[in-house]
């Protein structure tokens, strides 16, 4: 079990390092800067926490938990930035209806924040320490908002029939997987208490591992929109269109 935990802690971050390097080479920081910043931040946070674990003792564990919580807070802000980036890239940048759509997404976000506040308040505390409970609440709320917003964005673009570029799809799928499993894990941890800590931790780390693999796969795939097939306009069709135009405009 210890090996598995170390594997799930180290390997996804090594893979995330590959994501950062490939993103630099493919200039992803220009198209998806928030995602790039998130990946870099996750790496830095991992390096800091990994170093701290080498020096921390049971009496100073609160330093680790504080660092974890502060990191999670910054992570939440960066993930919200990634969400906005996805909405902007996939939907807002492609239409002049930005004001209406931005309002719609802001409304969905407000509903989800309210829902996360209500449900996280109803969940049982996982430990005796306030900072640990604070971290759990933050983690749960973040996953709820992230998963909810991704469902909203994906369903909305599906309803409007807007296609996604493959790289944005990969980013959304990665975050969606990690957020949904993280949400389930946080609920299990709240339901079962401290006895489920290790199992739930493994579940969350495995979800993050899957997410990083998804990001790597989509990074190596060409970034394209779905292809369309079809032949050109024939002369008879052009004549038809001309007649149609005259009919429509009444000329």
């Amino acid at each position, binding site marked *: 079990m210890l090996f598995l935990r170390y594997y799930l802690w180290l390997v996804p971050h090594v893979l995330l390092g590959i994501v950062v390097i490939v993103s630099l080479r493919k200039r992803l920081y220009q198209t998806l800067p928030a995602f790039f910043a998130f990946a870099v931040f996750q790496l830095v946070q991992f390096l800091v926490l990994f170093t701290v674990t080498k020096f921390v003792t049971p009496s100073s564990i609160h330093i680790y938990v504080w660092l974890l919580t502060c990191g999670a807070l910054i992570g939440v802000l960066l993930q919200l930035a990634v969400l906005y980036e996805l909405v902007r890239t996939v939907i807002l940048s492609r239409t002049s209806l930005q004001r209406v759509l931005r309002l719609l997404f802001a409304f969905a976000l407000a509903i989800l924040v309210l829902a996360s506040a209500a449900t996280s308040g109803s969940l049982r505390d996982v430990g005796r320490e306030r900072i640990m409970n604070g971290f759990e609440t933050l983690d749960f709320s973040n996953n709820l908002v992230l998963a909810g917003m991704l469902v909203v964005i994906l369903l909305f673009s599906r309803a409007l029939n807007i296609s996604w570029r493959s790289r944005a799809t990969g980013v959304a799928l990665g975050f*969606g*997987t990690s957020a949904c499993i993280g949400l389930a894990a946080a609920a299990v941890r709240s339901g079962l208490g401290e006895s489920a800590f290790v199992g739930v931790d493994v579940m969350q780390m495995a979800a993050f591992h899957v997410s990083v693999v998804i990001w790597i796969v989509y990074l190596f795939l060409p970034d394209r*929109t779905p292809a369309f097939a079809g032949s050109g306009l024939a002369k008879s069709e052009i004549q038809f269109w001309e007649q149609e135009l005259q009919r429509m405009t009444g000329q």
Partner: protein
Amino acid sequence: MILASVIVVLAFLALFLILHVVKGHHATGRDLDQLASRLQAVDVDAFRNLIDEREEEYLREHLPQREFRGIQRERKLAAIEYIRCASANAAILIRLAEAAREDPDSAVAQAAEKLFDNALRVRLYSFRVVPRLYAGLLFPGASLVPADLADTYDTVTRQVVMLGLQYPTRGMSAAL
């Protein structure tokens, strides 16, 4: 524990939904001919007539109350059907515009840009209007449909024709 179980179920449902929608996005590249064949005819004038307030007022004044309600109900159901058709067409036109936007000819790309915007507008309107029309079935007296829906759809139709002069839209305006 019950709340935790509900959240676990909802989380997995959300994951399933995300996977399903992403899978759908991968399968969305289509043959333009196949898209064109899915377009349905929409008579914009007939739709305008169905949501015209003056027409409604006229019927209200000249028909017995019971008959007026029955007719209004039929008119609203017909309007819903028209909007559904227009919305389905708009969804196809969004894809057509997306394909045309990649065209190297800037005139085609610009026309596609406008078409994309207006098709999106029709689609958004339809999401807003259909529930209002259903509400109108419950409250027959209330006027619930914005008149600009028909205008926007008309604009979209014209833009398809404009685009069709420059780009292979494969018989789409005929269906519109």
